[in-house]
């Protein structure tokens, strides 16, 4: 395949974000939700790198990407901690059953 690299990266980003969004909407397991979220964010990180490549500001893009990875790891940790606590207190990770607050 002779596609230019930026285009491959773009397709990868769209695939990652797309798969992540699809899983986020379809899945019923809380852990999978967090994983799907991570997929989307990794797509965003790649987008930063691509943008940095397109404008020649790779150093700036690199530092931004690292920062995003760190921030997002924290979010994932908090999310998983909440998931663990939910499993302990309600015995299930099914988000359909996690809908007592409604209307």
């Amino acid at each position, binding site marked *: 395949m002779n596609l230019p690299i930026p285009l491959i990266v773009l397709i990868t980003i769209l695939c990652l974000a797309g798969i992540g969004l699809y899983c986020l909407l379809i899945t019923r397991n809380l852990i999978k939700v967090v994983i799907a979220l991570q997929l989307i964010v990794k797509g965003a990180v790649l*987008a930063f790198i691509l943008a940095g490549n397109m404008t020649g500001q790779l150093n700036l893009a690199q530092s931004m990407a690292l920062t995003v990875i760190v921030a997002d790891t924290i979010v994932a940790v908090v999310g998983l901690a909440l998931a663990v606590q939910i499993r302990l207190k309600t015995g299930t990770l099914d988000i359909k059953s996690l809908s007592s607050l409604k209307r």
Partner: protein
Amino acid sequence: MTSNFLFSSLILLPFLAAPVVYLFGRWTARKGKQLGISLTRALTVFFLLVEGCILYLVLKQALSSGGAYLMIGDEPLVFDGIGLILACVVLFLGLMVTLFSIDYMSNEKGEEKFYALLLATIGSIIGLGMSYDLFNLWLWFEAMAISTYLLVAFYNDEPPSLEAGVKYLIQSAVGSALVMFGIALMFSQTGSTTLTDLYQLTSSSAPLAKIAGVLLIVGFGVKTALVPLHTWLPDAHSQAPSGISAMLSGVVIEAGMVAMLRAISMFGKIDMNWGAILIGFGCLNILVGNLMALRQTQVKRLLAYSSLVHVGYMLLGFGFGLAFGRIEGATGGFFHLLTHSMMKGLAFLAAGALLFTLHLSKEEHVPLTLDDLNGASRKYPVAAIALGLAVLGLGGIPPMAGFMSKWQILVAGVKAENTLMLIVVIFAALNSILSLGYYAPLVNRMYRHEPSTAVEQGTKMPVLMAVPLVILTIAIVVIGVWPSSVQFLTEQASLSLLYTFFY
């Protein structure tokens, strides 16, 4: 004290204070003594007061030297009107919430984490107001979000709290991801994320910039609770501890809105009517918020939906300002930001006081329902008058402050001299009346003579809990009869906003 030092300490102090406060709290916890936790509480109040003093000093210096800014590496931090008003609001409300929470959280497990996280939230919001670079903005935004995730799910033994926290986290993270894509798009266009660079380097019809704008609006909009991105809000605001509900409704949503406005302000050259988008969302928020609140039976959930309505009013104000260049719109929007934070903060604190005395002090984690409020005024006169005035003020009844801020927003709408905007103004005014349809019965319930069973069995309200209620009540009435007392703050903010947008 150079201005740089003062400014950096303004940003850094809450983050340095947070671990200090936490450690003091843990110091005597193992021995089961009260000394550590009392130190925590006192230190939190102390640090907030110090932060307030620093803010005042920075303001004085900025006024005398014509502006203050700080560069951390390549990231500019600017002390302008928007940052000033956000910092004032968050510090005032934070102080009230801390005073309130001293008794409210007094027997909860993990109390020291509460104060530490509160300080972190306050610090991130102050930083958010000061940031002038899109990526930096996102970073502060994320920091604020992470601090609030833990605060919302604070009662981690109660499944409803956890559920609310998880939903809030996932939705907020999705919003953040959208923002990231938007920033990446803008970065790819211009090679920089500083707001001024972005403004100058975008051309008037860049389609990618419009897509990025939409992503940014929706991404920040999740945090700002635009309809239909608002679904996390009723759960989070009703399950969080009441002081945090006050902070969430009063400042965190508004910080999201400020972030959104900062992001949009760089799009001034693009020929797309951003103001119209804001006005559209505003009308939707007002209508949906009112209709949903009308049928609620839980007090905190009702107040949460009412926050949607007031975010709608603020959006109308800013929309009028951006779409027609009317400065009254932006000034009114910031004025409403200020008054809403005080009135909604007071409402949540008063409802929290009642929740504490009726349920929490007896270790029952049940929500406060409208029926519980029956006859509350005899036993809890301070909480009743506070909740009553706050709620009537939210409905736009003078002499509370909500009347004046709504008025200023509507002035902008009529001055636009546009028939459609006139219809929007009438729509907003009629919705104010619709909101009275659920506020007024609440007030009537409190002043019944026949108390509910919950009120009969309620415990005594601690004095320290009443202090922030009294302060806030006096504040909203004073601003209501003397609106020009805060015009300095609001005008500075609106000038900053419109200056970046139009120039």
